[in-house]
């Protein structure tokens, strides 16, 4: 009995064993449960629906079918490790964990195993430096770009002079939330504004003292690096103390429907950064409806289509598919390996024509990846919430971050990482 049970267990546990196949494996390290499940679900849906669309409409990429697998991480690093180990032997072409914690975990592992890691707008910012982080990509923009874009936007609203102004940063007290601090401190020196830091412990349902401090300090602007329930709570508290909403700007992870809808009318006018467009106006949705949603092949409950995080998942899938096309072109074969996929990502160039051809015209800013630069050129937008129409609308044109500053900070941080881990520089 015990033996049979043990045998059954072994069989069940060994499901993670690799199976070679002639297809393109796009795993999805998603999280639909746990404290951040509400934010992880739309991203995963968008990512998977777009890849399903490619399969149904185009027969995959370059004639080879896409195989999707999904592994639930619950935003938990240990489950992330388990997921990674279960798929790494199965030729995963690209990993997108949507978690800064899991990203840090995977950086050394993917480098050793030769699997590309794409952390779109999150993760380790210095992963932008391709000379040190060969397998890590974070195009089109990263946290530090976000910090710089936010300050640039504030500058543009104030006639390029914010000397003596007070700017508060309300942040998730974790690796993710702490990322922009160094950049903002540099910018504070440069533009002579006063930076006030207000950490919020995860999950962040109780922020009264932070917002009372804001009420006391009366900062001219409030920036937010939040995730999960913290976003909605912060916007609610801001509305409660009648903080002027148009002076409250969140990073792109604090700017989804999930964050503003629970607050209702109070959230009207809240702003957040964006790295891509959003809404249902793009031609791709017609195809999605025809091939995926109406065919009953939508991922998850199918109720997230068109939301900000859904769009972001779709954007991530589009970039991954384009990189795969590039890789097929470079390798001369349709059946690419993770190493060839990495080369494809490094040679990726997204132009307006490519995005339009994919049914997403003007969705993101065109960018080009090189061996040295894995992070794009750092363009972003600002969007604003309209509570009556229940809709995000873009209110600026593309803003580019302070590339000189970001490059300097990235070089410093990646040099420290290289020294700590004895990594020789590439791309010479």
């Amino acid at each position: 009995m015990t033996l049979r049970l043990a045998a059954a267990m072994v069989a069940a546990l060994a499901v993670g064993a690799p199976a070679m196949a002639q297809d393109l494996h796009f795993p999805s390290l998603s999280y639909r449960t746990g404290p951040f499940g509400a934010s992880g679900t739309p991203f995963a849906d968008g990512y998977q629906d777009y890849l399903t669309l490619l399969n149904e409409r185009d027969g995959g990429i370059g004639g080879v079918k896409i195989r999707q697998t999904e592994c639930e991480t619950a935003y938990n690093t240990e489950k992330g490790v388990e997921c990674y180990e279960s798929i790494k032997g199965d030729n995963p072409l690209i990993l997108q964990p949507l978690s800064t914690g899991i990203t840090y975990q995977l950086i050394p592992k993917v480098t050793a195993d030769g699997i590309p890691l794409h952390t779109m707008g999150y993760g380790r910012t210095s992963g932008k430096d391709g000379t040190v982080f060969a397998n890590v990509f974070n195009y089109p923009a990263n946290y530090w770009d976000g910090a710089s874009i936010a300050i640039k936007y504030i500058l543009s609203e104030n006639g390029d002079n914010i000397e003596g102004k007070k700017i508060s940063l309300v942040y998730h007290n974790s690796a993710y939330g702490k990322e922009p601090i160094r950049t903002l401190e540099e910018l504070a020196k440069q533009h002579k504004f006063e930076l006030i830091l207000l950490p919020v412990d995860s999950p962040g349902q109780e922020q009264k003292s932070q917002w009372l401090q804001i009420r006391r300090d009366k900062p001219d602007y409030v920036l937010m690096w939040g995730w999960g329930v913290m976003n909605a709570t912060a916007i609610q508290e801001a509305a409660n103390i009648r903080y002027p909403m148009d002076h409250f700007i969140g990073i792109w992870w604090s700017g989804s429907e999930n964050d503003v809808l629970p607050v209702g009318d109070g959230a009207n006018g809240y702003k957040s950064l964006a790295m891509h467009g959003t809404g249902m106006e793009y031609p791709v949705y017609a195809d999605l409806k025809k091939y995926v949603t109406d065919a009953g092949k939508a991922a998850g409950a199918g109720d997230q289509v068109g939301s900000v995080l859904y769009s972001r998942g779709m954007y991530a899938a589009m970039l991954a598919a384009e990189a795969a096309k590039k890789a097929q072109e470079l390798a001369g074969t349709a059946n690419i390996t993770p190493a060839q996929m990495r080369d494809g990502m490094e040679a990726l160039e997204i132009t307006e024509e490519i995005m339009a051809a994919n049914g997403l015209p003007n969705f993101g800013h065109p960018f080009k990846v090189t061996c040295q630069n894995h992070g794009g050129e750092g363009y972003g937008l600002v969007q604003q919430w309209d509570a009556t129409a229940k809709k995000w609308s873009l209110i600026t044109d593309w803003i580019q971050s302070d590339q000189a500053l970001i490059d300097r900070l990235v070089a410093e941080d990646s040099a420290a990482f290289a020294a700590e881990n004895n990594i020789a520089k590439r791309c010479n």
Partner: protein
Amino acid sequence: MFYREAGDFSTTYRDDSQTFPIRFDRYRYYAVLAVAFGVIPFIINDYWASAVLVPFLIYAIAAIGLNILVGYCGQVSLGTGGFMAVGAYACYKLMTAFPDVSILIHVLLAGGITAAVGVLFGLPSLRIKGFYLAVATLAAQFFLVWLFNKVPWFYNYSASGQISAPERTVLGYAVTGANASASVKYLVCLIFCFALAWLARNLTRGAAGRKWMAIRDMDIAAEIIGVNPLRAKLSAFAVSSFFVGVAGALFFSVYLGAAEVGESFGIDKSFLVLFMIIIGGLGSIFGSFAGAAFLVLLPVLLKNVLVGQFGWPTDLAAHLQLMIVGALIIVFLIAEPHGLAQLWRVAKEKLRLWPFPH
């Protein structure tokens, strides 16, 4: 049939008081050790090491440590996550400050540092008892996590506060870092786990263990018969924290490779390890292993069955998995309230009488 004392004559006190008095048990124990040391390292792959066995061994160490404190000495602690963080950060600082010293020594030193911190936070146990003591250890939990998050010295001033384990080798084999092979990681954890479990077993049945148990059963009575509660309680905190610190150091350096204090060593970790020893059985070394196995292996197993075999959506599988784990805990409890270890003891009793129970 073979599982009985009959014919097994003890001729010395040593023989009489050994851990496995029944010959069959003894051989089974040797067989388990032989498989663990002699077979598994050769057949293990990355998935089995990183997803199943390494976390199991590390959690087992932490569970044994906590079991010494809660199960043997009766002091409820919810600071395990914080103490694991002390072990992890101590190990990280030592690794980066003295790169030439062996990682194994760093892990032990990290355990020592954790023991000192544990004693400090164990001081209130002299005055506060029962569930109320949990508040002292929770204060430790939250304060330590906050400290490691706030003071940049602990994470060598990195931008985000993440710590990453650089590569370190033992006898030429990489133990930490991404290039460490599955069997090396497994063996290192196994050696620590075996040595510490052996130590715990012998400590708990010696004078120290008897003092702890006297304190657990009734501390005033223990004091009257000459057990010094100060020394007994603090020594339990020290030994327990040492184990937990070693587990934390291994957890960070060998298992995860990178960690962030709030995420990896938060309050849910404290609860998880406490659940392990309660489900496994308080005051039992075997129970610590059983509880760790239950809570580490079962979710992985269920996930693979539900998603891998039945092809269910991952979110539904994750929710059902929670329900099944919860229901199983209750079912086990109704069947046997004293944990898996008691279930095991009952099974052994039955086995001794089998096939003629009357």
